[in-house]
């Protein structure tokens, strides 16, 4: 068995007396697309920055691409492509100048040819002299991805790459990620979009600095041990009252409205079913068992970890 692309253990990062990353252990196999999930401020960005050598961990060890995190920070930088959460290329440089700068820093040769080819592949050859700051969000994101893959890294670290990007651009972006993974590049991508999490081979869920779930989507959903029912009626006003009743009923942990359908989720399947049956039949609305979604699972995990913090 080959060494994993990312193998970090017990990472801890503190700012003052606040522990932002608390004993996080993550393993990502080569060629895998690993999702890194968690609510805002959960420590995803900090963890990614530690992995690419931008921050020094207060505790923990790790190997990235077989190189030691503490000793080989510079070597790791050459093999890793890091795409920051915010667009962090130069807005006052043109598209071509940005790529040229990156190519120079990675000592890519022949520089001009690689830059031209990258521009062609991006479909930006005709706009090469346009300032990067004038690009739309979707194009900025594509430019950033092209810039951080130009030196053919073996590992891509993407920090919320699709924030503020329209659905079509997001889908194209994910097609590109899968294409890169097909070439053997390992990808770690952080996101809080559930549909994106489902596009990953495996996911890691982090909350309040702690890693609280990991595995394939099915494994994470199954591991939460949740039961879900759908309660469906015809009128919004009626469903609002049903939702109120359900929230107060025993065995019900979450009630989430989707139009006139309610997702009712609970840990205790028997108690949940009894409550749903009673309230739904009392109100004269339809109800049926359903698959637990990843989103239901994450809401549950978030609530649970907040309880741990309190």
């Amino acid at each position, binding site marked *: 068995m080959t060494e994993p692309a990312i193998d970090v253990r017990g990472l801890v990062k503190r700012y003052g007396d606040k522990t932002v990353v608390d004993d996080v252990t993550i393993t990502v196999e080569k060629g895998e697309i690993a999702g890194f999930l968690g609510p805002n401020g959960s420590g995803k960005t900090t963890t990614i920055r530690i992995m690419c050598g*931008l921050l020094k961990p207060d505790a923990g060890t790790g190997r990235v691409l077989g190189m030691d995190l503490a000793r080989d920070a510079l070597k790791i930088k*050459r093999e*890793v492509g890091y795409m*920051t959460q915010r667009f962090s290329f130069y807005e006052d*440089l043109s598209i071509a100048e940005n790529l040229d700068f990156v190519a*120079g*820093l*990675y*000592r890519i040769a022949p520089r001009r040819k690689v830059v031209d080819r990258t521009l062609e592949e991006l479909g930006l050859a005709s706009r090469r002299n346009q300032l990067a700051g004038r690009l739309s969000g979707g194009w900025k994101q594509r430019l950033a991805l092209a810039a951080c893959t130009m030196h053919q890294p073996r590992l891509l670290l993407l920090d919320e790459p699709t924030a503020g990007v329209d659905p079509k651009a997001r889908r194209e972006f994910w097609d590109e990620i899968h294409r890169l993974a097909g070439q053997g590049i390992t990808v770690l991508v952080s996101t809080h979009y559930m549909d994106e999490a489902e596009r990953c081979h495996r996911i890691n869920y982090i909350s309040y600095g702690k890693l609280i779930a990991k595995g394939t989507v099915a494994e994470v959903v199954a591991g939460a041990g949740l039961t879900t029912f759908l309660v469906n009626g015809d009128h919004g006003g009626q469903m609002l009252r049903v939702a109120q009743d359900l929230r107060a009923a025993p065995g019900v942990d979450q009630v989430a409205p989707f139009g006139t359908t309610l997702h009712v989720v609970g840990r205790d399947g028997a108690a949940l079913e009894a409550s749903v049956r009673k309230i739904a039949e009392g109100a004269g609305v339809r109800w049926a068992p359903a698959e637990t979604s990843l989103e239901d699972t994450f809401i549950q995990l978030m609530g649970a970890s907040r309880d741990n913090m309190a």
Partner: protein
Amino acid sequence: MNAVFSLTRLRAMLAKEFIQMRRDRVTFAMMLGVPLMLLVLFGFAINTNPKHLPAALVTAHQGPYERAIVAALEATGYYHFTHVGISATEGDALLARGDVSFVVTIPADFDRRVDRGDHPTLLIEADATDPSASSGAVSTLGTVAQEALQHEEGTEAQAAAQKASQVEVVTHLRYNPEGVTQYNIVPGLLGVILQMTMVMMTSMALTRETERGTMENLLAMPASPLEIMLGKVLPFFAVGAVQLTVILVAAKVLFQVPFVGSLWLLLSGVLIFVMALVLLGYTISTLSRTQMQAMQLTFFFFLPSILLSGFMFPFQGMPLWAQDLGEALPLTHFLRLVRAVMLKGAGFTDVRPTLAALIAFVVIFAVLALTRFRRTLD
């Protein structure tokens, strides 16, 4: 693969910095505009040995003696009598309002005393709120009045007045016999302008990257601290060269400042001085979190440089503790060098100590900058 330095990476840094410099029109205009503006303002406006200061004459009547004294005083070039034959109270008011810088009072018994061979008294009141403005004029008084009277006594009035106007005032102003302030100010301005623009611009170097969020990306890429530093400071040598040319040409054409020393010696001095400045700016950049902080730190350094370096006030005239502070500023040493080379024609051996001091600043700032540079976002 060299981790510490690669020419390819430095070239990439430099290309980027030059493009950004060119795109930032306002800053670019400032780098060229500021030296010109300062030069014109300081060069023409500041005059620490002013002439033709307005004066008033308080006298009861106007005889040959009075005319002789007025003529002699005006002949020094310092005095310009705008009010003659007024009363003492009027004179006081003029002085208080600042309409005149001097009030010369010739008492009523002046003529009689002169004729009798007594010691005549002559009262000169000077507005000394700015001592440096009046000191030159005051220093000429005693001799001028004395000589005017000596020539006047016992001779025909008109001839005496004429002679009095030819009175020669002997002053010792070496290197600048005419007492032209610009000879001192303009070379000094070279140092001040370089200091201001170089330090300010480079102090923004890293904070701008941090504020725009590009620092994270730059650090994630394999650029070494040395390459980043050189990439940030080297473009300013080009800016410095342009400023130097502008100032030297203006010194020659606008102000007719003599240049008696070696141009090459001056250029070497400027090169070392600029190196010290950009590294100082870069050090400030590593210390600041925002551009605002960088700006404030720059000014924190800039004001003492102007006041204690010998640019504004004579260095030797300051108390010793202030001189010690001044020695810790690169501008002090540069001013010595540029004035020595331009005005006194000093050679290499004369300026060796100042060159050595400037080199010491370069080393100190370079070490500070590189050790302060954070390779991580911590």
